[in-house]
């Protein structure tokens, strides 16, 4: 009588491994690439503009005769570095505030939750744009703006999980035995939150990279000589017919990185 329909979750482990391999491949390319083939992402030689691959520039040259290989490698260091810095800040902030709100309850909880709800109503892109206009320095602005956007997700996750764990009999027993809040956090709360935080971190990194690239693409992010994924795409777009590979390399790299991060995050519970 048990004809339970098996709902196939996407094969968790295999999916995550594929994602991990993709992300690792992109990062290895960006870190090792310029060591294997030395070159300068800013050096121009207009004679070679839009010409094809050669040993010194395995992906050819862009419209100003700069090596696409080296520009791409630099771009793939810049965005993930900003994204990871923002995710770490946001994750730490969200974790601290979330557990604090859940543990304290009352007005602390109410104020922080209202703040998080209000931030949720604002498009992240918009906040990042406003912060970019306030903070001097584009990379710093991206870091601050993205941290401001991303902490909400971490806050909500850790608040909900902490709330649930603190109400459990296990925590009550621990408290009766006389253990302090640090012990409760380490043995009860953190093991519950940790896997969720990793998923949220992968999603957050993907979001951050998307935002940086999207703003670069519409000319309001990183400034021109800096190699950045979105900026490279929009610079090379007019030369699509002459040099399709020049445009496709940042496109493919961005897609691989984002796909890898999405797979690494796994499926989110709906």
């Amino acid at each position, binding site marked *: 009588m048990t004809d*339970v*329909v*098996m*709902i*196939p979750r*996407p094969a968790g482990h295999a999916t995550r491994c594929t994602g991990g391999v993709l992300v690792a491949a992109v990062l290895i390319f960006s870190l090792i690439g310029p060591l294997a083939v030395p070159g300068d992402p800013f050096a121009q030689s207009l004679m070679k503009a839009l010409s094809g691959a050669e040993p010194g520039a395995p992906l050819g040259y862009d419209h100003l005769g700069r090596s696409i290989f080296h520009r791409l490698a630099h771009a793939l260091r810049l965005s993930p570095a900003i994204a990871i810095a923002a995710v770490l800040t946001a994750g730490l902030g969200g974790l601290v505030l979330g557990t604090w709100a859940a543990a304290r309850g009352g007005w602390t909880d109410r104020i922080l939750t*209202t*703040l998080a*709800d*209000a*931030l*949720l*109503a*604002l*498009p*992240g*892109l*918009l*906040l990042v*744009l*406003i*912060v*970019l*206009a*306030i*903070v*001097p320095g584009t990379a710093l602005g991206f870091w601050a703006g993205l941290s401001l956007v991303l902490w909400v997700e971490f806050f909500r996750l850790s608040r909900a999980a902490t709330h649930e764990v603190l109400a459990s009999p296990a925590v009550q027993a621990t408290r009766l035995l006389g253990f302090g809040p640090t012990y409760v956090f380490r043995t009860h709360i953190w093991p519950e939150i940790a896997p969720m935080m990793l998923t949220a971190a992968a999603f957050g990194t*993907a979001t951050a990279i*998307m935002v940086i*690239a*999207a703003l670069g*693409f*519409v000319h*309001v992010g990183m400034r021109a000589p800096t190699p950045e994924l*979105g900026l490279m*795409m929009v610079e090379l*777009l007019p030369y*699509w*017919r002459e040099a399709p590979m020049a*445009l496709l390399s940042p*496109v493919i790299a*961005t*897609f691989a990185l*984002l*796909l890898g*991060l*999405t*797979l690494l995050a796994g499926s989110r519970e*709906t």
Partner: protein
Amino acid sequence: MNTLMTRAIQALMVAVLIGAATFAMMRALPGDAAYRIAAGRYGYDNVDTAAADAVRDELGLGGPALPAFLGWLGDLLRLDFGTSLVTGQPVIEEIGHQLGASMALAGVAVLLSLILGPPLGILAGLRPGGVLDRVLLVVSTGLKAVPQFLMALILILILSVQFRLLPAAGHGEARHFILPALALALGLAAVNARIARDAMARIGAMPFYSFAQWMGLSPRQTLWRHGLRNVSVPLLTYLGLQFVTLVEGVVVVEAVFGWPGIGHALVHAIFSRDVPMVQGTALCLGLSFVLINTLIDLVTQRIDPRRAA
């Protein structure tokens, strides 16, 4: 009523947050805001100290911070957005012009995503693990990893540059809608389809669903009477949350396709440091998120009365 109260507080907080953010933006502008605004008004070649001073006096850009901030919030809460620093037109009028274009684009995109996504998701959810289900999983995962600007780029390259089927930019005719709306809709549809599929698979596995079929209803009748209403609740809820993604998409896609909407205006306003304009557009977007989600709360309570209890 509790829902409405929570949403009202959220709306108020949104207004205060945007007020604080735009005020900080006004105060902390790198360089002299007066020069930038003067440049925006008179053109870069006609800016001199006199013009900048005139702008500074007119807008009260000097002076202490706290009273200015309170006055700023007061204006905001009275919905007095002031005039655009660049065009000199009231912000309300400017937004009124642009909001229509944006809403048309967003509406077409949502409609398109609802035509593409949920039907496929429901079909896949009726046979979990089937061929369609597996293909849909791969396609939607792939689509989710493509940001909207990249989708726009790919669509432009394929449909308008290579095959010359559709215009890459422009506004006014029906065919100008297709590319920007599609760029937005594909990403939304990928998520919609997954939500619909998960909900359908969950509901299809429930005892009441099998019971409806044992009563002698055909699969079509079962789906129509017992499936769709249940699937629509998570779908609608998620659609409300996706609004933020949609707005972000609209900002980027409008900038890429040169669509004269609110997102385009916002990017320009931030670029030229037109703070009242930024404030007006941001508030408009934030409040419409709250409004849409309030409506969706009310509608889902009608569809599924268990939620109201």
